[in-house]
């Protein structure tokens, strides 16, 4: 670029070039796409109409329900694991570390498969709630391993002076943990916990491997079944839209919460 151009001019030229490149890329994609095929395969109105209302009353509802159960379960179990990992008792630390490393190292899909099929064969025990129940236990176990590490990091990020202040006032270690450390830790880890939650929403789509009863199907299983029966991919697009409708407000809400919490940091 010519050296005698002013810096502001140069910046304007660079930005203009970037815009042009972007528009060109979009145009190429639009030009290459086969719009007729796209419309008949992914945006078939008749197929879409057929998906309702079950895609909302069964599939989306189950996705939200499974996410909620797995997240609450994962939080509770994760909290216990985090406290075990910070425990002065060595076997507790070992057990928590082994658990966390194992379930973070395995694909969620395999763990779900294991609880749905391997555990019943190996122990003659079927988890309650059928395949959905087995899959949910697996999701809780996998998410708790990730959440445990997040909570541990949060607890360790609370300044040691906070514990000292509480202890110097004569507060018992467990009260110190409950009313001083954990509230601050959870504020610190709100962003990564949201991440876990969003990942969990999408991981409920792995439950299909367990083989779900009709009324237990969540969005992905429901959409896949419908794709096979209608020979059309429109249900997948609907499912995708519904996932976004669930996740986007959630991330917005947490961003708002986070701004609110800044006051008390």
């Amino acid at each position: 670029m010519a050296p005698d151009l002013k810096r502001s001019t140069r910046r304007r030229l660079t930005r203009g070039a970037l815009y042009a490149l972007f528009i060109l890329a979009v145009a190429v994609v639009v030009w290459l796409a086969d719009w007729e095929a796209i419309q008949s395969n992914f945006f078939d109105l008749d197929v879409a109409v057929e998906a309702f209302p079950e895609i909302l009353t069964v599939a989306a509802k189950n996705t939200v329900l499974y996410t909620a159960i797995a997240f609450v379960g994962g939080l509770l179990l994760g909290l216990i694991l985090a406290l075990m990992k910070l425990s002065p008792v060595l076997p507790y630390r070992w057990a928590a570390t082994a658990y966390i490393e194992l379930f973070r190292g395995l694909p969620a899909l395999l763990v779900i498969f294991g609880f749905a099929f391997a555990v019943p064969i190996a122990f003659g025990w079927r988890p309650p709630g059928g395949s959905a129940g087995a899959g949910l236990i697996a999701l809780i176990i996998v998410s708790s391993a990730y959440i445990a590490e997040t909570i541990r990091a949060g607890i360790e990020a609370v300044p040691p002076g906070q514990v000292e202040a509480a202890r110097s006032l004569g507060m018992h270690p467990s009260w110190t943990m409950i009313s001083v450390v954990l509230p601050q830790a959870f504020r610190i880890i709100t962003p990564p916990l949201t991440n876990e939650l969003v990942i969990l929403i999408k991981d409920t789509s792995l439950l299909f491997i367990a083989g779900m009863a009709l009324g237990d199907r969540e969005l992905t299983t429901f959409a896949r079944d419908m794709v096979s029966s209608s020979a059309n991919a429109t249900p997948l697009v609907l499912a995708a839209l519904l996932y976004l409708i669930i996740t986007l407000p959630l991330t917005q809400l947490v961003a708002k919460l986070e701004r609110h919490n800044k006051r008390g940091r």
Partner: protein
Amino acid sequence: MSPVTEAALRKGVPAIEVRDLHKSFGDNEVLKGIDFHVDQGEVVCVIGPSGSGKSTLLRCVNRLEEPTSGTILVEGVDITDDETDLDKVRTRIGMVFQQFNLFPHLNVTRNLTLAQIRAKKRSKSEAGEVAARNLAKVGLEDKAMAFPAQLSGGQQQRVAIARALSMDPDMMLFDEPTSALDPELVGDVLDVMKQLAKDGMTMMVVTHEMGFAREVGDRVVFMDGGVVVEQGKPEDVLGNPQHERTKEFLSKVL
């Protein structure tokens, strides 16, 4: 007069008595045999260069720091004894930190009531009344609903003092309470501490404020290299130091 436990008064024992205290961090011996005491109602200021072990000594008194060896008696009770209920002893020892250490997620009132409710088992309303009284004492009754982040450093430290006072302690430990403050905010905190001393509170103050030590201290203790080098009346230690190390230190800070 501050509330002092009857048993202790009867016996007339020192509020704090430290005998042959040693403390090491790994290979680093920070306290090399300290004998030290604070009488009831006495204000003792501990001065000395950084790294002299004065903060460590103070933090051993409520066992935030675990002593390596030695004995620490608080109102005659050996707190290094495993049988001693440490939490109970700590409710009688108020502590004020250099970094305030207010609970940032709680408003000022809840900062003051939390330990009263959890450790002293006071009712919420009783704790609230005690909190309000102590907030007024440090001149911050209008900040009851504020969060720590909304306060200046000096205000935060006064809230921290009120928080410690709300436990109705028999004595107060101050760990460099004004060192983290902007110079113009130091005065307010020192005023609160002066008033406390005037009211008869037993105080152990680790400080760099020589003016405060001279004016308020009943006794000044100079520490260096993990030992007590010299102690006595403020005018003697600060005005006419006997030891070379005391003279050298004072020539740097005065």
